[in-house]
């Protein structure tokens, strides 16, 4: 086994292959606080990629209600349990020393790769979900957390921040196009690859022999087995859009379907530059700014060890221990910064879902202080790959009054 550096864990870890990094990495930030669970993202992926025979149960994008929901059922609880059994009580972080290469401290527990290395029979820890677990993809929709340890009881008293006693939130999930994918480590015939140009992870449909090792060893359960072709398929990151080869894009990298259709404007997706195996400093790339500079967006279950590339702004109202388990020790800082945003952060947050074209760089034009608030009406400007302006938005949304003669028109 090779040793690779995982910045999300702040340390080296075991992996089946030597480090090899793409030129750019597909990445996204999902702001959980804003999601309304309309499932428009889910349907846009389904109507683009998975509407054929054998894909009935496939939802490459899904939105599940936490803490009870999950697709496949309880995927994360099961993974956490497997890790706990492999290393009882050891899944802990040391966040006393933070740094650029270890923004969340150091993870002292075991990753899915390390937990499997002890036995040596497999490249990663995992399990194969049953058919039943893939049914009812939105099970426990809107089901709130009850009183702990008391069946059928919930907290009925009024609730307020920082932590709600009665709570749930929506978790939006696609393939994480991980830096150290569990699926790639698992495949014994190297039928899965990570593209050097954008880090998108794809299953070669010609080489796959339906072994389902990827289904078993992707901790996020994003590859799925298709019984009509007897091979596995997964989220393709809408690569024709991301590479700008879809005729619709006019040759410019464009956000994926599930991102560009998001009603709640919770999603921002793009490509980050990679140099010497690490994210190159690129302060004005909105993804870099949100995850590395402001650190408001965090990886999902970083302790699994795959270095996932979808980053989440954690929900403000959820009990912190639950969030720390899900997003690591960066949670408290992320929520603080999101709750009291800097001028720049507030402006950059306007760029979510502002344009279909991928924003490679932003600039800020400072505006007036907004009367009666501590806020400034700054303007965020987004630029495409060729550095042409594609979008311009101010913190205060423009206000339009409908003229009298159009009062009743739609």
């Amino acid at each position: 086994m090779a040793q690779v550096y995982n910045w999300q864990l702040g340390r080296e870890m075991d992996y089946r292959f030597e480090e090899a990094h793409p030129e750019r990495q597909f990445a996204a930030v999902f702001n959980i606080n804003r999601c309304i669970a309309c499932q428009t993202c889910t349907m846009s992926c389904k109507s683009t990629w998975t509407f054929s025979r054998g894909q009935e149960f496939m939802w490459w994008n899904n939105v599940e209600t936490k803490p009870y929901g999950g697709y496949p059922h309880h995927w994360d609880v099961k993974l956490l349990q497997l890790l706990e059994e492999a290393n009882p009580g050891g899944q802990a972080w040391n966040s006393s020393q933070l740094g650029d290469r270890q923004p969340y401290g150091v993870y002292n527990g075991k990753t899915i790769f390390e937990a499997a290395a002890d036995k040596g029979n497999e490249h990663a820890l995992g399990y194969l979900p049953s058919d039943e677990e893939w049914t009812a993809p939105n099970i426990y929709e809107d089901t709130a957390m009850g009183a702990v340890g008391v069946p059928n009881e919930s907290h009925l008293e009024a609730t307020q921040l920082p932590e709600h006693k009665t709570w749930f939130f929506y978790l939006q999930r696609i393939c994480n196009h991980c830096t150290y994918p569990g699926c790639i480590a698992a495949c014994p015939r190297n039928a899965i690859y990570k593209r050097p140009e954008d880090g998108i992870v794809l299953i070669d449909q010609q080489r796959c022999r339906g072994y389902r090792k990827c289904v078993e060893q992707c901790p996020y359960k994003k590859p799925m087995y298709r019984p009509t072709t007897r091979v596995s398929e997964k989220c393709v990151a809408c690569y024709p859009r991301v590479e700008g080869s879809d005729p619709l894009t006019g040759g410019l990298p464009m956000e994926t379907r599930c991102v560009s259709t998001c009603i709640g404007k919770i999603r921002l997706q793009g490509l980050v530059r990679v140099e010497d195996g690490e994210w190159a400093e690129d302060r004005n790339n909105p993804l870099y700014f949100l995850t590395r500079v402001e650190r408001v967006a965090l990886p999902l279950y970083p302790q699994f060890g795959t270095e996932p590339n979808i980053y989440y702004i954690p929900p403000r109202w959820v009990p912190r221990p639950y969030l720390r388990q899900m997003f690591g020790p960066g949670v408290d800082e992320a929520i603080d910064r999101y709750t009291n945003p800097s001028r720049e952060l507030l402006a950059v947050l306007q760029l979510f879902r502002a344009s279909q074209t991928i924003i490679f760089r932003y600039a800020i034009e400072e505006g007036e202080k907004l009367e009666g608030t501590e806020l400034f009406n700054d303007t965020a400007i987004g630029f495409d790959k060729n550095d042409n302006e594609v979008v311009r938005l101010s913190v205060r949304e423009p206000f339009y009054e409908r003229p009298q003669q159009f009062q009743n028109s739609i």
Partner: protein
Amino acid sequence: MRTSRRWTVLGITLLALMVAVGLTVSDMRLASSQTVTLVAKRSEAQVPADDPFDTVWSRANPVEVPLSAQTVVPPKAGGDRTITARALHDDERLYVLMEWEDDSEDSLVSSQTEFSDAAAVQFPVTPGETIPAFCMGDPNAPVNIWQWKAAWQTDIDEGFVDVEDTYPNASVDLYPFEDEDVFYPARALGNVFAQTERETPIDNLLAGSFGTLTQTSDQIVNGAGEWRDGHWRVLFAREMSVDGDYSQFAEGDSTNVAFAAWDGASDERDGMKSVSQFLTLEVSPDVAEGSGGVTVWIIVAVVLGAVALTLVLALYGRQRQRG
């Protein structure tokens, strides 16, 4: 004391010798080492490629081949198992028959967690001085693998198993572009796994070390497998000489053969299997007469005779020592 031991040793040697003679007479061999040979004799009777239980197989001499777990590279699995191998040829085609015990017939791959029973034979592409690693060959000494899967046998015997066969209510009212292969990417790319109209339950493959297994576009191996009363019999049949960089066979030649078996019920697939080492495969000009029931009796008689003789010799030795 010393004389007694000498007599016993003599007896045991005699016993071993007679068992060996018995096994040779019956052509029954234990393939515990690479020196063991599977002989494909010439069959004058027709060998039907679609019936592994045809009576012609009583004329082929069985060889017991021990398989063990694949423990070289992850994913590792499998276990100790024994298969019985037989082989025949008819100048045109080579036939290899595998037989092993399996309590459950696992012949579907339509749900997320179902895996198919399977079996494979492996030959060096070029027989000769460098015998490839039995683990799927080497980069400079490739192997030709023929793999049979129970799921493909089901597709052939009963028609392609589709979503509705597993879950009658799973299908949706409307599948746009239903007939366009591009929405079945594996099918559009010619992956044999995605074929809906299969002609053979056996895949013809090449490999040059593990992880390099490659399907070929030449689906030239025929055969059939059938599960009866707790055991599988699988028959592989191929023209002895074919176009392409595949193993070639000819009367009078020797090559190597290895076996592998997968148990679907134990989630076995890929490297998770039981494998044998290489044994010798001889394509013999001799006509297959079959060992029949008679040879078994010859062995029994020889063994019993040897045991009796040993006892007599041992007793005689002891008496001499006393006297």
